[in-house]
């Protein structure tokens, strides 16, 4: 069994993570980490209903940013999907989706300031890149036969709308609905950089130690996401889409001078701005790459690999919670509840909370990434395991897990884990904003020092790193012949 390629690859990943472990800073530096955690849990148990007004506003804004951002992203992505076979479109989409929403937000904050446009574009642009890729894959998989039977002389648009779109439509709709849920999480997290969404209120409640308000915010957010399918009915969508732009809040007005200055001066590398020529630029670039990009990349890779392995282990431990082969009806409902909370909580939010409690190190980040991603993978693998029909005399308990279930779900599990690899890395980079020394830390520091040219270079490095990991993951999936279906599965 050890010699099976999938197992060998997994062990390789574990070995790499173990090798990185001594280099990772995993200590708890807070003085009383467990008392704080206890207070937070108490806050969750005693949510403060008197703050419902402000909480409701935060949730309305969170939903509004999610709707507008995802709708624009979906529309843009659909148009881009039509041109996806041209390589400039493909490359452009890979590039914009390699940059995290929060990085986009940091960039647009410099142009548009605290205007709603910043938050909307921060969601719409990377989402458009993702939508373009997935939509084009879905459209490519549509049955080609109907198009061949159409009478000659049928126009391009009619051909597309009658023979291509209807077959792909259910998949497009379900994937878009899934991304709307992601959009809610992205929107909530954008509050941490100043948008008027959930994160903003959460941060201020946290900093004042108002744990009952934190509890109220988190609980209502869970309810909001868990009931998404109940209130986001297809018939109500036009209404939501029309109302959402008016519920973004007014923010601060855009200073257009800043916008042009950002593109013509701020992000132009300093030596070129000062006319010192290309030799000086090379020096400058080399310096950034050596003193900021390199340590950032190393920390990002270390954290990513450790978090990936912990995620995998946690997911394998968690999926039996929702698998009918291991649980009864009641315990399975509880299991579903646990996994829903795990995957509904954005990594960034979870990392923020754990950092508040335990102090800055890689540990909160690893735990946050593992909990969120294991929640997603565990849910999907659990669902998959429920499709397995066991013979009636199949072993129970650990034997059933090891002999019957795990061997059957291991392939899909690895495929999902590799799919999440790039997402975990993108998220790892962004967690630097919270003070862990991954790439985001250097980007954020450069932004604060008003060295936008440096921040820009570092964001480019992050994007290239993500694209690289994505390519590696795809290569591994192909080599191990793991089939992944796009769409809501992912």
């Amino acid at each position, binding site marked *: 069994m050890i010699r099976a390629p999938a197992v060998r690859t997994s062990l390789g990943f574990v070995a790499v993570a173990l090798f990185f472990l001594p280099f990772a800073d995993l200590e708890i530096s807070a003085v009383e980490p467990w008392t704080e955690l206890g207070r937070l849990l108490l806050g969750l148990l005693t949510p403060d209903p008197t703050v419902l007004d402000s909480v409701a506003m935060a949730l309305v804004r969170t939903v509004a940013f999610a709707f507008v951002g995802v709708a624009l992203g979906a529309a843009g992505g659909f148009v881009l999907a039509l041109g996806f076979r041209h390589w400039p479109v493909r490359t452009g989409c890979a590039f914009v989706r390699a940059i995290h929403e929060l990085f986009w937000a940091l960039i647009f904050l410099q142009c548009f300031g605290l205007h709603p446009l910043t938050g909307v574009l921060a969601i719409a642009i990377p989402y458009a890149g993702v939508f373009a890729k997935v939509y084009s894959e879905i459209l490519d998989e549509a*049955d080609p*036969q*109907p*198009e*061949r*039977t*159409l*009478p*000659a*002389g*049928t*126009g391009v*648009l*009619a*051909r597309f*709308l*009658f*023979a291509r779109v*209807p*077959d792909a*439509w*259910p998949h497009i709709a379900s994937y878009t609905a899934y991304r709307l849920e992601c959009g809610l999480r992205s929107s909530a997290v954008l509050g941490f950089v100043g948008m008027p969404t959930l994160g903003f209120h959460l941060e201020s409640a946290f900093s004042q130690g108002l744990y009952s308000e934190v509890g109220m915010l988190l609980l209502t957010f869970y309810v909001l996401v868990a009931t998404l399918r109940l209130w986001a009915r297809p018939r109500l969508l036009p209404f939501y889409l029309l109302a959402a732009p008016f519920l973004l809040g007014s923010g601060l007005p855009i200073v257009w001078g800043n916008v042009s200055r950002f593109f013509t001066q701020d992000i132009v590398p300093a030596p070129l701005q000062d006319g010192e020529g290309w030799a000086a630029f090379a020096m400058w670039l080399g310096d950034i790459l050596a003193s900021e990009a390199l340590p950032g990349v190393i920390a990002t890779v270390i954290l990513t690999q450790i978090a990936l392995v912990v995620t995998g282990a946690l997911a394998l431990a968690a999926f039996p919670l929702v698998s009918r082969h291991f649980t009864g009806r009641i315990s399975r409902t509880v299991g579903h509840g646990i996994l829903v909370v795990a995957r509904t909580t954005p990594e960034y939010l979870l990392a923020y909370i754990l950092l508040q409690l335990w102090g800055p190190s890689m540990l909160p980040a690893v735990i946050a990434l593992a909990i969120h991603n294991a929640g997603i993978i565990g849910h999907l693998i659990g669902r998959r395991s429920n499709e397995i029909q066991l013979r009636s005399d199949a072993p129970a308990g650990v034997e059933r897990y090891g002999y019957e279930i795990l061997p059957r779900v291991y392939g899909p599990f690895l495929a999902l884990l590799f799919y999440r690899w790039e997402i975990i890395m993108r998220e790892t980079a962004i967690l630097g904003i919270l003070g862990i020394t991954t790439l985001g830390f250097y980007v954020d520091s450069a932004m604060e020092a008003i060295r936008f040219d440096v921040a820009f270079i570092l964001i480019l490095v992050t994007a290239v790193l993500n694209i690289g990991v994505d390519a590696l993951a795809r290569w591994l999936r192909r080599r191990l012949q793991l089939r992944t279906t796009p769409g809501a599965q992912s």
Partner: protein
Amino acid sequence: MTVLSLAGARASYGGERALGPIDLSVAAGERVALVGRSGAGKSTLLKLLHDPARRDIAIMPQELGLVDSLSVFHNVYMGRLNRHTVWYNLANLVRPMKTEQAAVRAVLEPLGMAERIRSRAGELSGGQRQRVAVGRCLYQDADILLADEPVSALDGPRANGVMQALTAAYGTAVLALHDIELALRYSDRVVGLNDGHIVLDEPSDRLTEGDLAPLYAEPMEPGRATG
């Protein structure tokens, strides 16, 4: 007047010869039945005869080419997409117009499918789906029909009814049919295929079912095991 013709046509799949070389021409007003065992090359020959750029040809492939998520109305309406502006087609995609609905219903009526006009194609049984595809060909009202096993999923009386509707609408047609009886009844000319070659080409009224039986016999090729 010849409306379809092939000269020395060949087809191969993955380097393996599947058909040909074949010479065949079809005159206007001539209904040709292609017969032969499955794998003899009937579908391939139909594909070679089809020129996607010709507006006067309607096709009905074996896979039918229905859009499962669209209604029966839309699937039939698609036969005339090339006769309207894109805006008119779009409007009908969103909400079928009364006049178009009436026209499509008239086509579905003799096929026994009128009451299913609003059903999604994906909900229908195999035989119903086949009749929807027939409806599309009838509605298209082209000059030539190329159909691959148009009634294979229909029972006797229903199959005859559909064949009557198809042959009434299309004087010129090439129909792949594995059913010898239907082939003789609804064609003027029978072309028999075996292993990618034409082995028989006769007017229908000179043939009996017995003449066609050898085409369906077990393949007896030298050098290849049979069983």
